[in-house]
């Protein structure tokens, strides 16, 4: 197993894609720190992983705060003595209530950049000295296919995800001589609480989707956009993260890999 005896931090792992990533890493032998602002569901993920036989801890984390991501790294080192993998997954679609607005307001721009971009920067800044000293480390950032091409609608979200890809490249370049790989994964369409909000937003804002349930909106998006004709899953993203965070991907850095059934081809 690729991650036997290793330790990973996954931010935003209380639910959705982050949970899927945490479970896939644990299944391959990793201890996992579940770093999230939302304690209750996070503790459920911890219990689920522990039941599978590897270590897991909850660390209350707000990725928009550097002190908080510092604490998260300290928790990993205290708990397991080493940190091998950081997955920056925490993300938001906008500020609270974004699904009720037709276009993003200043709070939405701020929130998406704080969490989706600055959250990644904070996470990396909290581990880079440790990983550089050690000469080893794997960082995977969760961007989005929305970051591959600008489109109207929630432009703030897409812009923040394009920035997430750019930030991944910047640190990939910086950390490459120190044996640290930094890559991004761009998920496509995955049924999570985040997508539930997007579905609500579309059915209330956009005539084409009027009267549809969020799940129906999602299914239409899948059938319209995904060449493989099926939705992607948190496990798919977890599997891609597990590859990029393994030594099998030792010569891959600075890349953004779409896990999207072919929606975008890069």
């Amino acid at each position, binding site marked *: 197993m690729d991650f036997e005896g290793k330790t990973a931090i996954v931010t935003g792992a209380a639910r959705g894609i982050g949970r899927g990533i945490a479970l896939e890493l644990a299944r391959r032998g990793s201890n996992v720190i579940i770093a999230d602002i939302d304690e209750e569901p996070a503790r459920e993920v911890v219990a689920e992983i522990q039941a599978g036989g590897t270590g897991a801890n909850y660390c209350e984390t707000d990725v928009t705060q550097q002190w908080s991501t510092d604490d998260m790294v300290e928790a990993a080192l205290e708990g397991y003595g080493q940190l091998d993998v950081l997955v920056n997954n925490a993300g938001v679609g906008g500020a609270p209530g974004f699904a009720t607005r037709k276009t993003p307001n200043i709070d939405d721009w701020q929130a998406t950049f704080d969490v989706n971009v600055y959250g990644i920067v904070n996470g990396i800044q909290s581990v880079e000295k440790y990983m550089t000293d050690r000469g080893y480390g794997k960082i995977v950032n969760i961007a989005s296919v929305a970051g591959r091409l600008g489109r109207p609608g929630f432009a703030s979200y897409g812009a923040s995800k394009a920035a997430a890809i750019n930030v991944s490249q910047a640190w990939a370049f910086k950390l490459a001589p120190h044996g640290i790989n930094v890559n991004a994964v761009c998920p496509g369409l995955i049924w999570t609480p985040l997508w539930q909000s997007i579905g609500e937003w579309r059915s209330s804002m956009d005539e084409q989707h009027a009267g549809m349930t969020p799940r129906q909106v999602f299914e239409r998006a899948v059938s319209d956009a995904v060449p493989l004709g099926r939705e992607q899953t948190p496990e798919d993203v977890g599997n*891609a993260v597990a590859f990029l965070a393994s030594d099998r991907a030792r010569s*891959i850095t*600075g890349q953004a890999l779409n896990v999207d059934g072919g929606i975008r081809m890069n």
Partner: protein
Amino acid sequence: MKLTGKVAVVTGGATGIGRVIALKLADRGAAIMIADINEEAAAVTAAEIEEISGRSATFTTDVTDVETCRELAAATVDTLGPADFLINNAGIAGAPGWQERSFSTEEDWKRTYQVNVIGMSNVTSAFRPQMTERRSGRIVNIASIAGREGRPAIPHYSASKAAVISLTQATALELARFNITVNAICPGLLWTPMWEQVGDRYARDNPAYKGMTARQVFDAMIEERIPMKKEQTPEDVADTVAFFISDDAKNITGQALNVDGGFFMR
């Protein structure tokens, strides 16, 4: 992932990167069809595989010949069973004698396009029916970072590899509805017989590398252009092939992934 009971076809699998891909997949249990123009080397590699997975076959193939490609597909079914995985790896850097020339000739353009692009299409078309019929299959095309950006050194080669990336996207879209994924890998700098010749050419034609040995040119390029400051290996490419053909990558299609130590980040 265990590949026992699966059948993989590797074009250009007799030597170089293709040979290492074949050995890696055999090591996971797959039966391997080596389709190469070099009959003698193919037999040697096939014998090596017999020792690992116990099942291999060879079929002397010039990928530029449509009829031979059809015979290859039929021979694969007869000897090993229908192909689960097709690895289009056969490739050349120019027409015979290209390394002695300072400029691309029409022959270089024609032959390179014929093998690297049309040959890839020939083989893919030949295996298409056995994959679409079973509504499953994985195709991995070996492109190159040379295809990511036009460079003056060997323009015919770069252009052919850009075409491979494009062909990968087209094939991915075409075959998606049959549950077949098609992805490309862009290897970076690997010390193989091909690169030895590229290096000689640089040392002769590029003032910056005047008088160097091919290996010195190669090392200088790693230092200048590879953020990780390390050469890539056939093993790196083979590990990525193994990822793309695994269930872990079932929702990834149409992508081109650079395995290049961060040379190109897109």
